């Protein structure tokens, strides 16, 4: 039996070769996998889909874009992307565990990063390592002249952009990260040591990057960036913005919180309580599963956001 996964971590043959030859399906691993699968489903259905609804309201159908609606929209989109993809990755890893495969971890709380370098160590980790091992190092990596290293970096990030789609905005998005990483490595290595500020600046650039990612049309992209900074908008905020914020206030708080290791830390503590831990784990699993099924009832199809990449 082999799970056919169309989304999730990039798995190399060497990582599953042993399992393909001889799998060990154990009840312990099945339980772990089931638990991770349901948590991943929860991320996708309970967080990403609702964040996506907010994005639709603020971007796709917004009649009067404002500065606040543009910012709020791209922030929700950042959460939608993260919980969508990390949710699916958890589901894929969980499913693998249930069937006796060990798939690599793909996300490690990327939104707590304090530098762009750290962000890419935490975001879509299997993609980063794939490009590192198959493109960057064969090109010479950083064991070469500075100019060659600059070129290698830009090639890798241009290809990373292209990997996400055959559209110029993805190329621009890749090059954007290439430039950011070069500047950071050459001039701002010390910046990540400044708490809070380094986190804010990192998130600022990451969120800007998702703006490039979202708008495949260059004129729309240009208009969007103008709006972020007050050009071509209908004021600072409007009814749509206020409504979107109020309607999703607790969702936003939940997304912020779930982007940190805190909920997982608390969850792990709770389920490790002797003799009742597994009851708590089972209760959370059942509630989350029922909530997901209920939420999906009557909802329109909400496919995986990362499918197109």
């Amino acid at each position, binding site marked *: 039996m082999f799970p056919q996964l169309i989304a999730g971590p990039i798995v190399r043959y060497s990582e599953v070769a042993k399992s393909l030859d001889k799998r060990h399906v154990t009840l312990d691993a099945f339980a772990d996998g089931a638990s991770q699968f349901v948590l991943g489903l929860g991320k996708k259905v309970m967080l990403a889909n609702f964040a996506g609804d907010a994005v639709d309201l603020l971007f796709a159908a917004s009649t009067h874009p404002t500065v606040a609606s543009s910012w709020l929209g791209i922030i929700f989109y950042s959460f939608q992307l993260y919980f969508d993809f990390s949710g699916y990755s958890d589901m894929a890893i969980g499913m693998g565990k249930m069937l006796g495969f060990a798939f690599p971890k793909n996300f490690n709380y990327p939104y707590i990063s304090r530098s762009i370098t750290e962000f890419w160590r935490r975001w879509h980790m299997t993609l980063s390592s794939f490009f590192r091992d198959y493109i960057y190092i064969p090109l010479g990596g950083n064991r070469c002249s500075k100019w060659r290293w600059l070129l290698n970096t830009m090639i890798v990030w241009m290809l990373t952009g292209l990997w996400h789609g055959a559209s110029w905005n993805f190329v621009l998005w890749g090059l954007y990260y290439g430039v950011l990483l070069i500047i950071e490595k050459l001039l701002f290595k010390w910046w990540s040591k400044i708490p809070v500020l380094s986190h804010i600046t990192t998130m600022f650039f990451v969120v800007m990057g998702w703006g490039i990612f979202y708008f495949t049309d260059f004129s729309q992209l240009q208009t969007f960036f103008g709006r972020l900074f007050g050009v071509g908008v209908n004021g600072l905020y409007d009814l749509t913005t206020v409504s979107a914020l109020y*309607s999703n206030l607790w969702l936003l708080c939940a997304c912020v919180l779930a982007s940190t290791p805190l909920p997982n830390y608390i969850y792990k503590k709770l389920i490790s309580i002797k003799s009742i831990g597994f009851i708590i784990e089972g209760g959370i699993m059942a509630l989350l599963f029922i909530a997901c099924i209920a939420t999906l009832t009557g909802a329109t*199809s909400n496919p995986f956001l990362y499918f197109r990449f």
Partner: protein
Amino acid sequence: MRKYVITFLFLALLAASTVLFMRPADTESILAENRQPKTLPVFSLSSALDGSFESEFDEYVNDNIGCRGRLMEISDKIHSFYGYMPEGVGRIISTTSDVGTGAANDSQLVLYDDSIMEMFISRPQTQAKYADTLNKIRDIVPDNVKMYSMLIPTRLEFCDPVYAHAQDSQYNAINSVYNLLSPDITTVDVYSKLQNASQTEDYLYYLTDHHWNADGAYYGYEAFSLAKGAAPMPKSNYAYRENGTFYGSLYQKARSQIVGTQPQDICFYYDTASDGNISMKMRAEDAVTEYAVGSPMFHTEHGDYLVFFGGDNPLMEITNSAKPDGDTLLIIKDSYANALIPWLVNDYKQVIVIDPRSFGGDVNAEIERYGVDEIMTVNYIFTTTFDDMCDSILGLFNK
């Protein structure tokens, strides 16, 4: 112990969700939305390739799940936990809107004061195309046929300015279309009538549906009579009839975010003096039915907007034998006209109603066949933002 409990629980949850899909569909929750449950789509290569099979199957699964109503209640409850809304403050949600032509526009709904209302998004190019379409029709139809255009605003336009101004101005959109029309097309100023009436009357539109009601449509009739220079029949000539309560078509789109909205009365006005004088037939069914409560014109089997003619029909022919020397009016319309037509039938020898979304014939031939004296296009302002609706209207004359 943990591994047994978690494994068993997970498998039990999977099994339970499978059972939900195998249980008979909970059709009550769907009927409450005034629609029939989706049926299993027929698979074909073309439907698979264009994605319609996938989306229709998705809709089928969504409708055919046991305990659907209960699950949706849970879903609504969960959704309500995601945000906070101060009392008395409306909210805006995103959706799509369509006029039954196949195209869908991104849209927004305002949820305010127990009402769900579509927000108007102006599309000047399409609105200009709509005006151009009517001008072309004016050129095609014989000169002796008078032509009228009625564009109807929606309820949001007359709401609290905080919400009304969140959308593009429907007043400006209507005027921009009217200003582009040929001088040989008489415009019907239903906007002013509804604006004045909305100062004193609460219910000219349904609260959870995008249509006007019979009372709102009466102002359309008054405005049309004014444009023609005729005197409208007073409303007091008609008997008021209620036909149950309903949730409108917008309710399904917003039900998870609106709390406390009650189903609303559906009503119509019936002219008791017209018994026996008025008869109608639909192109698809040749049977002639007389003006009566329960006839297709007042289709009391339907407890919603379908009470008017049972919905949209390709061609309806309504004959008033009390007016053998009267004029014949041809209406090219969207569903807004359905509530308006019962007010018009007493004034004409014949009212011919054509829906461009489903009528496949040649309107030029119908004009000749019925000896049409007047043509009126009746659309709500949103219709002017749908490119393919313009094509459908013009297509009626280019067979």
